[in-house]
């Protein structure tokens, strides 16, 4: 029997307009094309506000999930300008990120300069935020030269991600690890931004400070071994370690503290995991600042 002829289908966009889908047309492509047109102002506004939120810690419309008539943007000219820029750039997100990160607004330090409550709403200083779960574990793995296992038991057959893939490259919210769950990665059950949660809870500290998962990385990771067994002088080792973990050289005080710890640690090799342990548990490492 020949396959039944597939008739063109009528589809309705969220704004009420209709379109006829040809039998060989993927409706998702049609929807994606509709999403990024200037006649759909909602997506533009939402993504502009979200990118701003990701980069500056607070939406121009605050909270980013709460876009409605009676929740006005803190700066409507800025929002309108950014919407225009995104549309003018053909919805090129990379170009759009560049526009924001090269702006003066993005440059201030995280040391607050004003006590005025309006300062935060107007992006007067860079906000402190804990690294996202994926970024945090990727950074720890990069430093220690280790990997994590990401799996999903649903749907069967189970999914396993190759070990060399970083957590930020996992496309699916259901493929996860205990670390990612604990540190508030979004499960993407909804489209809401607030599904990701970076607020600190004690269980996260227990994991960072005490878990065998992290301790094993610190003790056995080839990345740290390479630094400590490099045959360099102790002060050079400390320099490389600081550059690797915190992207800066140690201060005079820190150098003294670390040298003292290296001298007093028994057995001495404890220092090779305890010093990086202290650095990855400092807010300077854990926070965007």
């Amino acid at each position, binding site marked *: 029997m020949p396959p039944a002829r597939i008739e063109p289908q009528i589809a309705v966009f969220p704004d009420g307009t209709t379109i006829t889908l040809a039998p060989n047309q993927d409706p998702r492509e049609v929807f994606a094309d509709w999403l990024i047109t200037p006649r759909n102002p909602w997506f533009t506004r939402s993504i502009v506000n979200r990118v701003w939120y990701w980069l500056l810690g607070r939406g121009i419309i605050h909270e980013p999930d709460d876009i409605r008539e009676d929740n006005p943007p803190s700066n409507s000219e800025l929002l309108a300008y950014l919407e225009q820029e995104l549309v003018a750039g053909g919805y090129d997100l990379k170009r759009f990120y560049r526009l924001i990160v090269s702006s003066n607004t993005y440059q201030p330090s*995280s*040391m*607050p300069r004003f006590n005025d409550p309006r300062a935060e709403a107007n992006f007067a200083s860079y*906000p*402190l*935020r*804990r690294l996202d779960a994926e970024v945090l574990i990727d950074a720890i793995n990069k430093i220690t030269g280790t990997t994590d296992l990401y799996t*999903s*038991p*649903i*749907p*069967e057959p189970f999914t396993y991600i190759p070990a060399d893939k970083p957590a930020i490259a996992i496309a699916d*919210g*259901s493929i996860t690890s*205990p670390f990612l*769950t*604990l540190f*508030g990665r*979004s*499960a993407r*059950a*909804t489209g*809401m931004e607030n*599904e990701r*949660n970076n*607020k*600190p*809870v*004690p*269980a*996260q*500290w*227990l*994991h960072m*400070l*005490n*878990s*065998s*998962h992290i*301790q094993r990385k610190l003790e056995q990771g080839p990345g740290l071994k390479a630094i400590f067994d490099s045959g360099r002088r102790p002060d050079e080792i400390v320099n490389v370690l600081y550059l690797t973990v915190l992207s800066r050289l140690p201060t005079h*005080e*820190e150098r003294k*503290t*670390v040298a003292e*710890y290296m001298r*007093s*640690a028994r057995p001495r090799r*404890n220092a090779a995991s*305890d*010093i990086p*342990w*202290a*650095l990855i*548990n*400092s*807010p*300077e490492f*854990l*926070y965007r*600042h």
Partner: protein
Amino acid sequence: MNTIHKSSGATDTSRREVICRGFRSAAGLLTADYLLAADHLLARGLADQTRPDKVPGRVGAKVKARSVIQVFLWGGMSYIDTWDPKPAAGYNYMGTLSAVIPTNVPGVQIGGLFPKLAEQADKFSLIRGMTHRNNGHETAAYLMQTGHTPGERLAYPSVGAVFSLFKSPEHKGVIPPYVVLTRSHGRFSEEGFLGPRFTPFATGGDPNAQRFEVEGVIARGITDDRQKARRKLLTGLNTMGHAMAARQELANTEEAKKQAYEATAAFTWPAAGP
């Protein structure tokens, strides 16, 4: 009998003891004895409310479950092999596990794999009249855990998170009210819209090991002296933290860290009194 008696010289139960006890009841507990004890307690608590006349010697006694253990099998064990066999349906339906055994409750049969449970059927409740019409493990698990169909605008919390929401006002101690062995499950975050305070505490570790070590609470191979020394090192190297000590974000994380230290203190540090 019920008065709390404080003799001179005797201290209250130490915090360490309370935490250890609380923790055993929350997580460390997967010994068969304990499971049965807890089950028994739960069954009795329910029995007292529903049919006090059937529990000899405990008429009118108020026994309440203090904790609940949920064993969720994700559809893994078939009901016809276990709790709800259909012997009359024949081999094509029952397959090779067709043996059924009577229980100590007249009229109730369960699968032949459960001879010990069959002897105790008066102590548990069995619900056979429920189905959810959902074919996917993922979506069905969400439905069973949250009571909501997937695809609504919100991600709903699972039953354990709801439980800890309502029970946390009276919940004391540093051990979280909602603990999972050994890792959180599934596609949907179990705390749902309630947020990370209601994320289950995942024990990690291997419950089958000789000594079950809860991840994060006991630091393996780190002596108390070393633990103290490296914490001092952490404080000494916390340059940015000291410079920004006034920032609320850092105060929040320091508070969480303090609570974490308190949790570990009960296990790895010598108890310094109550």
